[in-house]
């Protein structure tokens, strides 16, 4: 379970303070898949980084599986897997296998556990043909598969994906969607941010919508459709944003 309570994050930009998150509060239950929606700059990545212990909240607190991200960051890190969008965070001069082995060792996996895990993941993502090749020569889709495998190498119970299908072709995106379905079946808790509404409505149980650092909606998808009188998530998202802007204007 992830509990975000009154989290505010401010960054200092030269002499000014920029507020990236404003009193964000929401809860993600165990086994839930939550879609994080918002425009660029809405605070999605900052929120995911805060949950992942990479950023310290200026105010408020985040607990992951009952552990405070500030006080017990190592316990949190052991339980989560994170994939940030755009960059895959892989070492180009190492092979896919070496990348996975390295991160497995950082999570304290034994050699045997690592081997079994790499075998499972390479089978799942169809990476066997290029597992022993250096990552530097990989296509974006191949890199993304290795990066996802790296995220899952320690079999985390909570997974955070930040725009995971950005730049992926249709085949790779479908592989990712199948993966989320499988992880959901395995009872993993997942938060993923995305701009693709079809993807969110296809994969998520609930959504969290962010606008200018604030949480404008969080709840079950079915309830949202009922309240808004539409099953078009794209339309609902846009109308929420318009209402959000009116709220700011007033």
């Amino acid at each position, binding site marked *: 379970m992830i509990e975000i309570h009154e989290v505010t994050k401010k960054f200092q930009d030269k002499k000014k303070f920029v507020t990236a998150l404003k009193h964000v509060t929401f809860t993600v239950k165990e086994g839930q898949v939550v879609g994080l929606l918002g425009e660029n700059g809405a605070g999605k990545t900052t929120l995911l*980084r805060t949950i*992942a*212990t*990479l*950023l*310290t909240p200026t105010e408020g607190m985040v607990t992951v599986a009952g552990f405070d991200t500030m006080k017990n960051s*190592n*316990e949190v*890190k*052991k339980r*989560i897997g*994170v994939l*940030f969008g*755009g*960059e*895959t*965070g*892989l*070492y*180009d*001069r*190492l092979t896919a296998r*070496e990348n996975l082995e*390295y*991160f497995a*060792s*950082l*999570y*304290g996996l034994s050699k045997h556990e690592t081997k079994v895990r790499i075998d499972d993941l390479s089978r799942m993502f169809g990476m066997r043909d290029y597992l022993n090749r250096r990552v530097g020569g990989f296509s974006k889709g191949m890199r993304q598969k290795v990066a996802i495998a*790296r995220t899952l190498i320690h079999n985390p119970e909570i997974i955070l994906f930040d725009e995971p299908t950005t730049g992926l072709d249709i085949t790779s995106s479908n592989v990712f969607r199948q993966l989320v379905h499988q992880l959901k079946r395995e009872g993993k808790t997942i938060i993923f941010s995305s701009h693709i509404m079809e993807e969110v409505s296809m994969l998520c149980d609930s959504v969290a919508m962010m606008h200018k650092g604030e949480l404008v909606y969080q709840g079950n998808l079915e309830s949202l459709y009922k309240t808004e009188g539409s099953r078009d998530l794209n339309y609902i998202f846009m109308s929420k944003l318009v209402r959000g802007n009116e709220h700011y204007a007033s």
Partner: protein
Amino acid sequence: MLLNIFLKEIKDCFRDRRTLLLTVLLPVIMMTGLTFFYENMISDNGDEKYRLAVSESMNQDLKGIFTGFKNIDLVEAADPEAALEDGKAEAALLLGKSFSSQISTGEKAKVTIVGDTSSQKSSVLSSMVQTALSVYEKSIIAQRMQANGSDPSLVEPLEIQQREMADQNENTTLLAMLIPLILSIAIGIGSSPAAADLFAGEKERKTMEALLITPVKRSTLLFSKWLTIATVGTVTGIVTLAVVVVEIQMLTEHLKKALSFGDQTFTIIGLAVLVSVIYAMFNASLLMLASIFGKTVKEAQSYSTPVLMLAMFPAMGLSSKGINELSFQHFAIPIMNLFSLLKELVFGIVDYQHILIALTSNLICMIVLFIIGRMMFLKDKWVMN
């Protein structure tokens, strides 16, 4: 954990062609160039010929002034100065019109040496001509005094002898300055790509974020990365020293004699390696900070350039100091102590007290730099772009 990270970083670094070239190839090229340059310089000192332009009308007695100087060739010309300008000689000797008659009648005779101070050969020749003329001048004085019935030794109250301290000669002095300079530059250049890549590069490629979300302490990450930079620097230093030792021993004759340490050879080589390791560790601490400051590899390299330039200053400051003039501060100031210790070692001096001073001061500075690095590495601002 630390070992796992260190081994991975080393593997990653040495798979980078840039690091490999700068760590191995650069020292080989630099040191080979230096070795052969100095070997030639030393051997040339004895055999090189110098051309002195003299007047065609110069008589045989006067030419006899240069009989003792085997490497001076006299070039006869109608106009010696023109011969010099045409490049037919390195210096010209101009004698007054009545030079011979003035000498024989006991008058003051005029002699001019024309040379080019910007040319090393010309300067050496001018100095040799001055020495020859000085000897000739003394023989004339002796003749004139004998003719007057005086003892020539009256005007030579001193018998001056000059010799170099111990085995210290000009070639060893130059090597004592150049070996540490090239060693420090090689260590700096060799380890800078690795340093830039390990912090700024990881931030730029976002691999740093992937590392920071693993349950590994930031101090462990920092230390293993520092250790990697220090190891790459140490490898460069050892390769540099190995090239010097092997090439001097196997490919040179004169340098081998100039750098002969007798029974102390292995002690001196071992201590030179120790000094290189200490410098590589200190250098790694500075480059680590430069890389943490940088957001990109390019930015980190811009910051590390002044760090590499720091090595030039002690070389300049110490070039005019003899080994007996080196004092506490020369061994206590990092970087400068590399030059001071290697200078001593090149001259065959092993002073454990000086080594201990250098070791302690470098260790203190490294700890301070590491604490600063750790403080920065714990802040989000410096680890994520």
